């Protein structure tokens, strides 16, 4: 087990390194225009462009540029030329909001998905299954930003059931914090509940036909014990990996859309707004950190998965 963990962590570090290079390439190498001009935003003066060129090393070879860019990102020396905000500070400020959204949504979707998936599997073929599966399919087909906007408008603005966007820090008022987040959590979860409940249903239906479940029944265990101890547990194992992957992806990107619609001022929204203004430095930093986060979460998930399924430790 220990060797497995070490191997995974080493692999992770390599990937992080590759990500930094890839991000750098995306922003400063691939595009077909002057990088200094791109960074400078709208209507820069010639002097500004030159200053940027020197600071970032665009007049120097590529690897120098890479080093300088990484320096800027990791030492907090990154400034947006459009808004004059220090990017790192802004990200740190916005991060708790994004995490509140992501973690809450992740718990919500997991809980509902497991319940729904198990229920529809057990009642497979009957009306309840068909109805709930139909709902799940509709959930998958609704873009989160659209349903979020409609929820915000109808439930928030028009009928005043929930607050119309905005964020209250957890430390300030936990109740209000949750109250403001219920709609965003729901909007973000809908898609995942749909996807996960169907994957779980499929896994459960597969597992239920597996031989060792038959053995468990032959042992004299009650149907409930069989379901929970053997079927569910084994069906959940692949889902754990997915959950970890998606969690990273949600924090890194999916939350973005929800934050924008509900005006939560999280990291995602920051990225979205920067995109709208074609402001590169924040997007650069957020993309890189987002990817880092995904990789770290994936590695952790891999390790957790190995504890659940001992066969994996051999890989």
């Amino acid at each position, binding site marked *: 087990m220990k060797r497995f963990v070490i191997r995974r962590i080493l692999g992770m570090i390599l990937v992080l390194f590759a990500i930094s290079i890839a991000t750098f390439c995306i922003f400063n190498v*691939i595009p*077909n225009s002057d990088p200094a001009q791109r960074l400078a935003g709208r209507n820069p003066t010639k002097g500004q462009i030159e200053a940027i060129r020197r600071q970032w090393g665009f007049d120097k070879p590529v690897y120098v540029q890479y080093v300088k860019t990484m320096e800027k990102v990791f030492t907090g020396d990154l400034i947006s030329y459009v808004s004059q905000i220090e990017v790192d500070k802004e990200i740190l400020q916005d991060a708790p909001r994004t995490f509140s959204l992501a973690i809450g949504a992740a718990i919500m979707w997991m809980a509902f998905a497991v319940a729904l998936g198990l229920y529809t599997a057990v009642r*497979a*073929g009957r009306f309840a299954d068909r109805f709930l599966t139909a709902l799940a399919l509709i959930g998958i087909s609704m873009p989160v930003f659209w349903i979020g906007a*409609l929820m915000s408008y109808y439930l928030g603005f028009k009928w005043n059931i929930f607050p119309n966007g905005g964020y209250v820090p957890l430390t300030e008022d936990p109740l209000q914090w949750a109250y403001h987040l219920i709609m965003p959590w729901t909007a973000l979860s809908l898609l995942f509940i749909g996807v996960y409940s169907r994957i779980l249903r499929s896994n459960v239906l597969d597992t239920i036909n597996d031989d060792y479940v038959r053995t468990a029944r032959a042992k004299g265990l009650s149907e409930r014990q069989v379901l929970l101890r053997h079927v569910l547990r084994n069906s959940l194992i692949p889902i754990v990996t997915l959950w970890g992957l998606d969690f990273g*992806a949600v924090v890194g990107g999916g939350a*973005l859309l929800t934050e924008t619609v509900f005006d939560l001022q999280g990291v995602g929204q920051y990225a*979205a707004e920067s995109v709208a203004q074609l402001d590169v430095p924040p997007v650069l930093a957020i993309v890189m950190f987002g*990817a880092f986060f995904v990789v770290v979460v994936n590695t952790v998930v891999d390790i957790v998965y190995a504890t659940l399924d001992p066969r994996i430790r051999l890989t």
Partner: protein
Amino acid sequence: MAIEPASELASAVPEAIVAEGGRTRVAGLAPWRIALRRLRRNRVALAFGALFLVIVAMCLAAPIYASQIAHTDPFKNHLTDQITIDGVKKDVVAPSGVPIGPTYSGRFFLGADGNGRDIAVRLLYGGRTSLTIGIGAALMSTLLSIVAGTLAGFYRGRVDAVITQILNLIWSFPPVLLGIALGTALALGGLKIGPLELDGDSKLIPSIIIAIVTVPYTARPLRGQVLALREKEFVEAARAQGAGSLRIMFSEILPNLSSTLVVFFPLMVASAIGFEAALSFLGAGVRPPNPSWGTMIADGVERIITGPHLAIVPGVMLVLSLLGLNVFGDGVRDAFDPRAKVRVRRS
């Protein structure tokens, strides 16, 4: 409580019972034939597939609608115009800024947007854009995935290591973030790789971005399948007959991937269309004033207080398209995988 597994015996009868001159005969069937039969029986899936095709047809007919019925185009704004409905003259966009609602007549069937443009016309043109980008992206992604997955799985070793690392790398970036990153970066200067040169405004750019970002999701499963197929006896047999690697890939491996691809494709198109909508919503996909369902939703959300239908209408079109593809894709998957669905006689 008896849970419903399809008994092993029940699923071990993949035969057709063929009536032949009074005596019944049992014949074996090819897997894709069985799948097609099952799909044909799935009326719900077929209906939703038809729904999607209807939407595609409607959007293809956009120019006809625009010129014959609405008498405008998606970019013309009629801010200062007036139209006559039931004999009453009305402002297309009222002085207060509120645009006209649905007229349910030829012009401005679904009303006008904040810039005085005909929503119905933009909806259909936007659909063309969204669907083209979505389907195009899915096709490109499929092609790239087949190449990457087959090469990696077949040759293994270093080729596999390199390809897998690239796939992992792409996969590490949260898709939406990567999409907007590429969208921003490329919008500012277009794309120039070797002979390929694209303007920042080109519709091909969002397609390419979506294709690249979604490649890992298909390439990895394909690679896994190729790895398994490679070990099968019929590949060994082909080699023993003197077939070269390329020939084996084309004649033995690819055909066996076809069922996976057929199952994947509708879902890939759905996710590509959804992805495009998200990117355009954020301004990193289709650039205004080009219509796409995503940009229309963005416009609508901005002015949602003046009229929610501005946001609802393009959204509904989007949802219906995705629903059509998702349900149909589900049906295709069920048709190919007998254990995914419980088969119980309606008795």
